[in-house]
């Protein structure tokens, strides 16, 4: 079985794949040693580790080179947080997607916010973007289509109407070639369940410190739980404390 197939099969609703996000080959190897079944990067972590802001401020060349080094450093399948694919037009997306697949990564996150703005692409635009991305990567690549609806709205505004908008997007994204659907920022388990029941794609939730436990995500039908920037932030805190003790 190819790495892509292995990875795709790890997405089981109710028995989620847990991804503890990495940012460089060293962190990927440490996470692989812990018994992980796949490696995922987080774009915020990669940015911070290299001194850039999040939001495609990491130069594409650095992002791709880092992805390639991670894919070479571990045996496990690697999925890359590729933000908005570093392009706002079709040809650019096809080309960048192809280059990402050439790094050896077998999947990516691909988001629907217009990077650098508060805007979210409308469905028609995002469907075209996903289909361009699919054209670039071919069939054997897991496109985890992310919606930023819940990150852009305050938790108090996370209601049925917003969940239904997400469902509408998920169905359209599935038709345009997405392999998974990612809903970071949503922690209301009833709304999560509403989405997982209505959507055929495996759904990815982002684990937040203090947020729902893994068993709760599982019961709500989640197929993948990732950790976003939190592993990196925890490591930064740990390093700072160790350094303070050593410098004292």
């Amino acid at each position, binding site marked *: 079985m190819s790495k892509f197939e292995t990875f795709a099969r790890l997405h089981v609703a109710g028995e989620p794949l847990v991804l503890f996000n990495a940012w*460089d080959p*060293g962190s990927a190897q440490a996470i692989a040693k812990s018994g992980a079944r796949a490696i995922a990067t987080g774009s915020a972590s990669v940015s911070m580790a290299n001194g850039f802001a999040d939001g495609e401020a990491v130069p594409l060349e650095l992002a791709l080179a880092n992805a390639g080094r991670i894919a070479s450093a571990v045996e496990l399948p690697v999925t890359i947080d590729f933000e908005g694919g570093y392009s706002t037009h079709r040809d650019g997306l096809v080309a960048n997607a192809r280059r990402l697949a050439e790094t050896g990564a077998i999947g990516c996150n691909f988001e629907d916010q217009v990077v650098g703005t508060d805007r979210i692409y409308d469905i028609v635009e995002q469907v075209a973007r996903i289909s361009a991305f699919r054209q670039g990567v071919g069939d054997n690549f897991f496109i985890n289509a992310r919606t930023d609806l819940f990150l852009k709205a305050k938790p108090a505004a996370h209601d049925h109407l917003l969940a239904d908008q997400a469902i509408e997007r998920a169905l359209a994204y599935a038709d345009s070639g997405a392999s998974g659907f990612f809903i970071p920022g949503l922690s209301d388990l009833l709304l999560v369940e509403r989405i997982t029941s209505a959507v055929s794609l495996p759904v990815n939730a982002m684990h937040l410190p203090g947020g729902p436990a893994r068993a709760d995500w599982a019961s709500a039908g989640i197929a993948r739980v990732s950790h976003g920037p939190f592993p990196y932030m925890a490591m930064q805190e740990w390093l700072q404390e160790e350094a303070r003790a050593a410098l004292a």
Partner: protein
Amino acid sequence: MPGKFETFAALHVPGDPLVLYNIWDVGSAHAVVAAGARALATGSHPVAVANGWPDGQNVPIDFALANARRIVQAVEIPLTVDFEGAYSTSPTVGGENCARLKETGAVGCNFEDQVIGGEGVHPLDLQVRRIAAIREAVGNDFFINARTDIVLKAEACDDALIEEVVERGNAFADAGASGFFVPRLSEPGQVERVVREVPLPLNLIAFPGAPDKKVWADAGVARISHGPFPHRALMKTLEEMARQAIS
């Protein structure tokens, strides 16, 4: 107001050592700055393994320089870079490479005498020519921390070996080194002798199980760095945290 180089050089005080908690990228630099560090030092081993290469100049020089530049631009305090053998055994090319390193804004480097990818250490006369060429290429305002690996490479550190360490330290000083770095030197009596007989600030590595910093300070050490150990400990912690999250 003194420049970053002068600030960094002045931090080397025998008996009151500058402590460097080694970093490898911009993120780790930020964490160590937030901890109150007065200067930053990369370790070549962590830079290598964090990025998927083995140590020993397997990190491409362009990557090493770009990484150094990103760190310099991200922090206010002085940065010294572990530059291994300056990516060349040729004194001229080593000098050119160190000049490129200086252009990143780094204020100093470690420069070692081991034969990278081979056995043992370079003959003293070659190493002296390499250091002199680097000094000529970088000018006076760059801290060349000349490292000898003879203790690291030896099975036991006896008085005869310390004799050689002292000989190298003096020759490195004459060639233009700013500091003397002896990884694995540890025993306070031997440390004291090197401090007494070599006219350069002495740098040791704090390894797990090493004497207390106070003991080394009392022996006259001017700089204590941590080599690969911060990164190693962090990766161990990450592995444990990931295991908890995944299992």
